[in-house]
């Protein structure tokens, strides 16, 4: 064998770089290395192939791009900038893959998997109820657990890091709220608002209705439309349960509750809860929400707010009935000229109605999977209501919630 003269070996840094990044890209092709077989299987049959296919296509495009780059290197037409660009593309696709790998990795054991599948289903069900009659396709949902106080969503259809469209709505549910997941419905509300154009139209409706109270006032409320729409979506689906859960998440020191930062799509927490209790009052009459409202206002006196914030809150409180009327009853193009409460029957989550339904189905209310699959949101609404109305039996209600979510999760594949 002839020994090569090492002093004559040509150093090709660009090719070395290209080889490295292309090999890394090719390793991404193994989706089974991304998540365990169990985690992949834990996705619903309709989500699994769709997501895998999407990720495969992203990687395939990346590899094709890399191979073309290397080809051009061989012909001497590629530049160092091109390699840098490919490296960036790789990192973008890797971020996408890592996001889903992390999400899938939270499906650790059969019990958690079943609970998250139930969350997937509940969120998707809430969207379908509104979107299907409007002729929109309901996106798939993948929920995952994370730490923290509040949930979040990476909406389906959004442009992702690698410029592809997100194939599913990825909803983060925080650990403490896993068995009280009305926040899922709030996040699903963001997704339906994105699909229907609800935010923009609600913003315009608020602006129009409140203009008579001053431009700044109207603009402040209009700027909160996206978060308010999501709150309303959660309310019409789960009633007081969503208000109670929101209350527990945003409650804290009065300074925080009364904090206002212009430009933030989140309304002042103080007002968010009051909007919720007002929704209950308007739709359900008197009830425990009146006590919540009273207690909330007592606990967080406006003296703790900055003057400008206090002024905005003071101006808003007497107008809440009017504002809530706009939120619930204003007809919008997004809903084919109907209001949200005409599209989704809020009366179904009236506590009296929930009680009647629960009595009608007896023990089967929580133990019959077809009933759960048909109407999971009224279970969420009823359980969430009881937790507040009968706190002495909280443990029993939590067990019920865990059991029915497990049952729901094991009833679908």
């Amino acid at each position: 064998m002839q020994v090569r003269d090492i002093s004559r070996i040509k150093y090709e840094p660009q090719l070395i770089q290209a080889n490295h990044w292309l090999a890394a890209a090719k390793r991404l092709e193994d989706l089974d290395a991304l998540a365990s077989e169990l985690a992949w299987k834990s996705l619903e049959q309709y989500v699994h192939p769709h997501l895998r296919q999407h990720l495969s296509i992203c990687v395939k495009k990346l590899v094709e791009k890399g191979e073309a780059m290397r080809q051009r290197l061989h012909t001497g037409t590629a530049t160092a900038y091109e390699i840098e660009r490919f490296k960036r593309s790789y990192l973008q696709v890797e971020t996408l893959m890592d996001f889903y790998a992390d999400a899938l990795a939270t499906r650790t054991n059969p019990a958690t998997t079943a609970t998250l599948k139930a969350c997937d289903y509940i969120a998707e069900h809430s969207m379908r109820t509104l979107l299907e009659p409007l002729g929109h396709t309901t996106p798939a949902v993948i929920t995952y657990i994370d730490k923290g106080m509040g949930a979040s969503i990476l909406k389906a259809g959004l442009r992702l890091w690698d410029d592809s469209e997100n194939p599913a709505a990825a909803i983060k549910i925080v650990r403490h709220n896993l068995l009280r997941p009305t926040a899922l419905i709030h996040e699903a509300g963001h997704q339906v608002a994105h699909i229907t154009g609800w935010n923009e139209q609600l913003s315009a409706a608020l602006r129009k209705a409140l203009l008579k109270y001053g431009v700044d006032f109207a603009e402040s409320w209009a700027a909160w439309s996206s978060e308010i729409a999501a709150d309303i979506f959660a309310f019409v689906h789960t009633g007081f349960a969503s208000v109670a859960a929101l209350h527990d998440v945003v409650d804290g020191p009065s300074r925080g509750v009364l904090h206002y930062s212009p430009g933030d799509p989140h309304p002042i927490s103080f007002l968010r809860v009051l909007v919720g209790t007002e929704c209950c009052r308007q739709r359900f009459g008197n009830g425990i929400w009146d006590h919540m409202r009273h207690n909330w206002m007592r606990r967080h006196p406006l003296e703790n707010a900055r003057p400008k914030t206090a002024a905005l809150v003071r101006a808003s409180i007497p107008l809440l009935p009017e504002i809530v009327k706009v939120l619930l009853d204003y007809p919008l193009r997004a809903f084919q000229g109907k209001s949200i409460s005409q599209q989704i029957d809020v009366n179904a989550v009236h506590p009296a109605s929930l009680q009647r339904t629960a009595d009608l189905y007896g023990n089967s209310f929580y133990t019959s999977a077809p009933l759960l699959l048909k109407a999971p949101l009224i279970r969420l609404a009823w359980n969430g209501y009881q937790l507040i109305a009968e706190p002495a039996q909280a443990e029993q209600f939590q067990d019920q919630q865990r059991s029915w979510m497990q049952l729901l999760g094991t009833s679908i594949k």
Partner: protein
Amino acid sequence: MESPFLHFPNLERDVNAEPLPVVKETYTESPFLNVNKLYGKPQGFDKKAEAYVTIMNELHDDEFSEQMEDLLNEMKDFREKYASQSGYMNNEVYSRQLTQSYYQPMLREMNGYFDKMVQYGQEVDNNLRSATDLETLFSDYEFNGTDLTDVQEQFLGGLKKAFKKVVGVAKKVGKGAIAAGKFVAKAALGPILNRVSGIFKKFLAGVLKDGINLLPGKYRNIAQSLAGKLLPASMRPQPAAAAAIAPAASFASAVTPAAPMMPEPDSTSDMAADLQDGMNAAAAQVLTAENEMEWQLMEAELDKALDETPDENEDMLSAARSRFVQQLNELEDGDNPAPAVEQFAPIVTTALKFALPLIGRERVKGWLTSLISKLITPFIGKDNSQMLSRLMVDKGFTMLNLETAEGNAGTTAVAEVVENTIRQVPEFPSYVLEDRQLFERYIVQAFERSAAAYLPDVLPEKAYDAQPELRETNERSVVWKNEPPSAEEAAPGYKVLNEVIETEINPFIANEIKTFGGIPLSVFLRDKLGISVSSSIPVKVHLFESSPRNDLFQIAKKAKRVRGLGNASRSAWMQLHPLTSVAAGLLMREPGLGCRKAKENCLGKRKSAQGHRYYYLEIDGARPQYFQPAKGRQVLRRHTSLKARLNFVTNEINMQLYLSESDAQAVAACLRKKNQSEAAHIMVMMAFKEGIKNIFSYGKFDYLKIVHQHVVPGNHSGMAIDKVPPVITRAFSNALVNWAGKAMISFLRENGDKLIQAAEHDADGLSLRLNFSSPPDLEIMKEMLSGNYATVKEDLFTDHPKESTIHASPGHQQD
């Protein structure tokens, strides 16, 4: 003769018709032909036959058939996976070895279980153990599931249950509760269990050996052959499939008795049912034998039957098809395709197991070849076939390489049309084969039908305007295209329509369309997929056409691009429904796309024959519904159904109305409201009436069982109801509704709480078991099933049964 296909420029007509032969008279089969022989006297019933049918009935288990079906499908899937990965399966010996080693853990578990059972049986015989120990073993025995798939574990569970039933029957025989004869009654338990476990092992070994080449009907033949020793041959019911193709069968029997036409090949589900029947028949033989010699003879016969080799006709046809396409490709413009057609036609008829009549066979072959050659001449030659290929590409046919595809796509489609034309010949009435002009008219019509399905629009638009039936569709221009075969298959795969049709279904349509067993589509969608069609919902309809070896399972597994399909699980293939013309009309306003097979054949049971059409509904939000039992693995939920067993031996009728979880909860909710028993009654009876409609029509196979000394017991026993004149069956089904309705309202008023309790149980749905003892006039039906129609009278079934009972129990109850 008029046909636009005959107006192509270079088509010549041969008008020299041959003289008509004399038409022979054929006999029509009718049960009434036997009446004069019987003079109203009931036939004597053999005690041994009675014991045999009773035992078969006790051993029967619907769930075991389903578990067997899943195992057979898993086996197919396994073989195909390996085939696509390594091409090993080209070697049949190696493929068997692989299959057997794959199933080694299951066989090990099965053998271990049987050995343990036999050992316990022997120890009971020797008084080393009590019968209770054996019972405990049944409940406590657990298979080691480490190396088993879900399907295998569930199958072993079914096998365990089946064996438990054998032990139960053996005990009854021992105690004289079933009068099966002294030999078995006195025999020790150990040897009986040893024989039966040996039989079960033989069957399983046969299945593993045959694998995907399982012979349709092979195991049914075993069951019938064993039963035939006890039941009079003349009394045995015809298999369903043979009855369904009566015209061709009668032709075959009238003209060429030596070569009767085979019934349509059965699906995996039929094979699974036949396997169970075969196993049960053999076990029943063991339990009714009169001496040890009978045991040995039966085993020898079983060995011989299980040795039957697989059918290779389909492979032959596949090779011939490729050769035919190649021959057509090689022809130049103006060449005569007759020699190629002449070679191809007999192979198609052989694969169909159809024999042309001996007299005039050559003449008919000549007519066929000559006419088909003329019909396809305009598509032959380079220019013509390329033009046809281009038309097909326009219709969405994917061609990776147009250059090479152009040569093949057109001729492949022409070959398809030719094959399908010939496939219709067995359906021609026999007299057509004796009259050239008539035969040619039939062939042209068959050709037009085939061209409508498998060729794009090749005729001028005015031809289609004048004869709309030249297309299958009214509003669309569609064509069926072949899906490529899998790596293992030489034959083409199944067919798909080149268009996915977007439409809507509403509650009325969903109620009106029936799926397998006559079940309304709305019930299937609600109970199996969680879709309640309460308003119009958008659906995408995917259409498929089966081919040999591409049944529902294969289609569902291979349809990777269809959301919701593309996997081998039951939850996928169960979503393929029979595309009857009613379904096609209501769903897509295109009744012409419906299956051309007889409606009862499509709805009756799943088939794997060439040319059955199915649809799959892609519905947003549809999900297979699963039930997680307290012990064991997830299973698919069941839909509401009614099953009936007409037991002429014990003179009773047992019916089981299974209410799906949705229906059970709806009825229970109704009962919880005060004074709502009547509303609950209406709901229950609606399900009952829907079930009754099916039991005597499309559901004969799945939902009706007959226990009668002259009916072969098992999965096919319900087909014997065809011996009862429809007018009697109608009166009987009306009576059943009346009896059930009266008993049901009393039950709901007095025992509604029991139904509520059953509904609140964690099980999937609930079962209402109705039992009618000594129903009036059942004796008359019993006589009819024996072929005696002389006792028929007016006003049948007007009285009520002596005793009617109803029990509500949680979940789906077996007998």
